């Protein structure tokens, strides 16, 4: 079962994705801030990371920067999943090495799960 790491500070979002991903046969592990997410990435070696941007205790962009600087985990693809839908932010995330940038209000949990599955097949 593919292991996905979700870094998200809103417990309601976490609960929603947990159920949807479980139904889709994906193993979702969760972290509630960037720092925790980095530690979990190093420990669990997920196949994909979905990360929020606005979080206390290390935001998503800083997490991405540090992840790409760590040779052991730098190859894990990261998708930013956020409510901030700004062009500059998208460009910066791509520059830092994000695979993609999805807006939470636009992409429903089912669509997120579909895109993740598609992406993992490509990665594989």
């Amino acid at each position: 079962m593919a292991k996905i790491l979700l870094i998200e500070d809103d417990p309601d979002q976490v609960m929603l994705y947990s159920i949807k991903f479980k139904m889709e046969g994906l193993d979702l592990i969760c972290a509630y801030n960037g720092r925790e997410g980095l530690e979990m990435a190093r420990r669990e070696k997920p196949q994909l990371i979905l990360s929020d941007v606005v979080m206390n205790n290390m935001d998503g962009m800083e997490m991405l920067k540090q992840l790409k600087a760590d040779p052991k985990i730098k190859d894990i693809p990261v998708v930013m999943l956020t409510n901030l839908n700004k062009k500059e932010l998208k460009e910066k995330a791509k520059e830092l090495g994000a695979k993609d940038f999805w807006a939470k209000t636009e992409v429903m949990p089912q669509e997120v799960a579909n895109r993740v599955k598609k992406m993992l097949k490509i990665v594989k």
Partner: protein
Amino acid sequence: MIALFILIVAILNFILGFYVFLNNPKGRINISFGLSSFLIGLWVFLNFIFIKYTSIYVLQAIYTLAPFIIISIAWWVASLQTVKPSKSFVRINALFILFNCFWGVLMFISPQMIEKVNSALDYTTGSFFNVFTVYILILFFIFIIYFSLQYRKSDKIFRDQMRLIFLGIMMTVVIAAVVGFVLPAFGITRFNFLDSPSSIFFIIFSFYSIIKYKFLNVRVIGTEVFATFLVFLSFLGLLRWIDLSDLVLSAAIFGATIIFAGLLIRSVFTEIKRREEVEKLNVKLNKAAVELKARAKHLEKLLQMRSEFLDIASHQLKTPVSVIRGTLSMFQDGSMDKVSKAEQKKFLNNVFQKANKLNVIINDILRASEVDTDEFVIDKNSAKPIQIEDVATCVYNDLIDSAQERKLKLEIIKPAKKLPPILSNADFLEQALSNLVNNAIKYTAQGQVKIILSQDQDNIIIKVEDSGVGIPLADQKKMFDKFARASNAVNMYTDGSGLGLFIAKKIIEAHKGGQISFVSQEGRGTTFTVTMPIIKK
């Protein structure tokens, strides 16, 4: 002939000084220039008297006046600078004036200064006169050094003006110093008649400077003086008539000169007036441009703040929307059919809470926009005398249920005696106080929240005290910012908009004299203090 020339030079000096002074009687530059011109004119006039009457007293007066002229020119040079003369400059000048007075007295009482006068071109100086000459030369060199320093400090236009006038002064002073002081000290007095006419150089270069550079902004003065000079010359011609036809011709020339002079002055006046109007318009235009630039900058800053506010506000709004949409989409695509009824209920409850949060955020954003302007003030036009006890009771009644739900004790502590009224708007003040008490309840896990009312001599003091999580020191500075949230409270309470404290501060500070502050210790609780001025009787 030379006497007449000296008289004309004296009159020209008086005219020059008088007109420059009249142009701006309150200007430091005009006063000091006028004084210098007047003193030079007086000095030249005394020379005229001396040539005519050969009196020792007049000669003594001429020599007494000379060092004062140098001091007056130094004052004029000092007045050209925008800053007032320094204290040391004033003190040194006062000292020299004292010396000048001393020499003046000595000049009149001691025969060692001027021994005797035989004629206008033949007088004998005493031994003290040589010392006086040295003093004059020292004074002269100090003036040159001072002038050079001021010259280096000045801008280009002033330099050009000063260069010309300096040349005039130099020629006058050097000639006067040589024929009036140095040569007499060696017993040669026959060239003395040349000293005072030398001030014609000062007059010529001053006029040239006035006309070429609009020196002292008195081009019109130059024209007036020139015109007066022409009228004066034609008047002299009129006085020297020989026969009737000569008189008629001279009178005609005199009349024509007056008309010409009048027209000349009028045309220069018109041009100066037009130029002044253009300059005034130019000044206005420049002022408007500066104002426009400042406004554009302010607008740019406002737009940037607005853009930042919109970014954060849209994020705050989208956060509950994404949960609502996500959950409802899962009900719609049948995913929720596969979870238990209890879990379905939990998700629906989440959706309801997120919708409530959305409502709170929208209301707070609207209120924040309302209070976040410079125009938002609560003054006598929008406020009336109110009792703080009434406002506190309303807040208590609104929030007591929410406190009891969280098993917290909410109480109002107030003095037995009725507090004096404050000038406020009850709706806004209730919102501010409600935001403080609501935060206290939401961020307090156990214990109590107190609303404490009191007064000092000038103010009503409202304290909202809780035994909650407190605000970490690192977060305390930003707590009144829009969407600020303490790092230790992020996951505790998510129904707020992050605008409560911002709105409270804006409302309190919209009152004249209204202040809000807090003290907090992480893990021990927070106390917000609001002070509002009591209405003075």
